[in-house]
């Protein structure tokens, strides 16, 4: 098989294990490309991609833009701030106006869960979900799983703990779907107030003891506390969170085992993770960033094969 089972990448839930393996195999080749002196290939030279970001983003937007440019696509960028969205224009109207400029693919971030799914029912262009609210962030999950596979090999039977603010995270859900499809065991750890009740129905272990999670796992994916999404107080203070759920060197040294440390960024240094852990040799945080470009190149390349 050399094509994805869907013309869009809306979430990991809809992908098959074979889709994920195909994306990884293609990303392997793009990783080779981006480490060459000339990092560009002409594959998407006749494709126009619009990065439509209704919500702030730094690394995802940069990563997609770099991936698109390295595939030689024409790229236009749209940010909701300062646009007609502020004047009351609907999502569909905004996107249809962009598509009228002969755009072939849309990479979209939106604060509303399901926004890219809604759009996929009304437009012909291929859509890549770059994060929809607290729902899914499929390319982040793909690059995370790709980075884990690169460090520890086949993920079948591996134990992965996702630690932190789960309820506000779109990374957590996509990670769970991706890891389970690849045969890994998933544990969720965080304060009870930051863990949605439905999670246990996905077949993941849920704990609130950070030491228990770290002792169990081969890989710890530590998520950011998303203070900007918290309308109410989910825990008494950042200091208390850091004390009970922060990952620091002392805690890791006491485990008598080595685990791989991941973080999708941006990091609240000293809150969910200390600098001596984030910058240690066990951390693959910067590998995640590098792999993000290769993985996104693979997704765009494979989806572009379906552009009519």
């Amino acid at each position, binding site marked *: 098989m*050399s*094509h994805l089972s869907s013309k869009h990448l809306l979430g990991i839930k809809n992908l098959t294990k074979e889709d994920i393996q*195909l994306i990884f*195999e*293609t990303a392997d*080749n793009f990783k*080779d*490309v981006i480490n*060459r*002196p*000339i990092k*560009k*290939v*002409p*594959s998407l030279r*006749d494709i126009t991609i619009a990065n439509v970001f209704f919500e702030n983003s730094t690394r995802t937007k940069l990563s997609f833009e770099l991936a698109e440019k390295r595939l030689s696509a024409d790229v236009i960028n749209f940010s909701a701030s300062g646009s007609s969205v502020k004047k009351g224009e609907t999502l569909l109207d905004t996107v249809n106006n962009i598509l009228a400029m002969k755009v072939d693919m849309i990479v979209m971030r939106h604060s509303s869960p399901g926004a890219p799914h809604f759009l996929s029912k009304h437009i012909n262009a291929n859509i890549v979900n770059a994060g929809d609210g607290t729902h899914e962030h499929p390319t982040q999950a793909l690059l995370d799983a790709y980075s884990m596979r690169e460090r520890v090999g086949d993920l079948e039977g591996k134990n992965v703990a996702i630690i932190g603010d789960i309820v506000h995270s779109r990374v957590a859900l996509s990670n769970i779907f991706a890891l389970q499809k690849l045969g890994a065991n998933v544990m969720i750890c965080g304060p009870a107030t930051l863990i949605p009740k439905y999670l246990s129905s996905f077949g993941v272990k849920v704990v609130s003891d950070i030491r228990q999670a770290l002792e169990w796992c081969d890989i710890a994916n530590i998520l950011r506390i998303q203070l900007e999404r918290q309308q109410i107080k989910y825990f008494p203070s950042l200091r208390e969170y850091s004390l009970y759920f922060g990952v620091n060197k002392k805690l890791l040294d006491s485990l008598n085992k080595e685990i791989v440390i991941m973080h999708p960024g941006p990091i609240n240094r000293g809150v969910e993770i200390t600098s001596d852990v984030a910058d240690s040799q066990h951390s693959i945080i910067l590998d995640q960033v590098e792999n993000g470009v290769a993985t996104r190149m693979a997704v765009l*390349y*494979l989806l*572009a*094969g379906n*552009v009519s």
Partner: protein
Amino acid sequence: MQKRLLLNKKHLDITISRLCHELIENHLPFENTVLIGLQPKGVFVAERIKSKLEEIIKKPIELGYLDITFYRDDFRRRDEPLKPNETRVPFIIEDKNVILIDDVLYTGRSVKSAMDAMSAFGRPSKVEFLTLIDRIHSRHIPIEANYIGKQVNTVLSQKVLVELTEQGKKEDKIWLIDKSK
């Protein structure tokens, strides 16, 4: 469907040997010359050329693998995206004499893509092209090989099928297949 044998193992060995001697005439002592096989089947031919050359001149010759998938001009014109193969060029090609090697030369588009792909690794001093089978009168773009194993006059309904032991085949056999008969 009709099949006609173009080369068997014996003739293939003789052809590879002859191609090596042609390369020796132009490139000995191979100090500034490297071989690059095009993925997937050109690599097998390139490995045989390298092995035979090393046997004759008694010194190692550098060989790289080049995948052209991301450089093809028919992306999105096919039913599905092509699956890439490994590219491995573990040497500098800047100012080198590069001999690109493929199994079959047909429209010339693969060779054009290969030259695009190769330019990502530097600017060679000279590029030559070696093909095992040259399907004459079928070019879409003006590309010719410098070293040719066998020339075959073919029409659109015909196809050259290369079967080598490296692909898990029992015997080396190169066929001309006519789908219209």
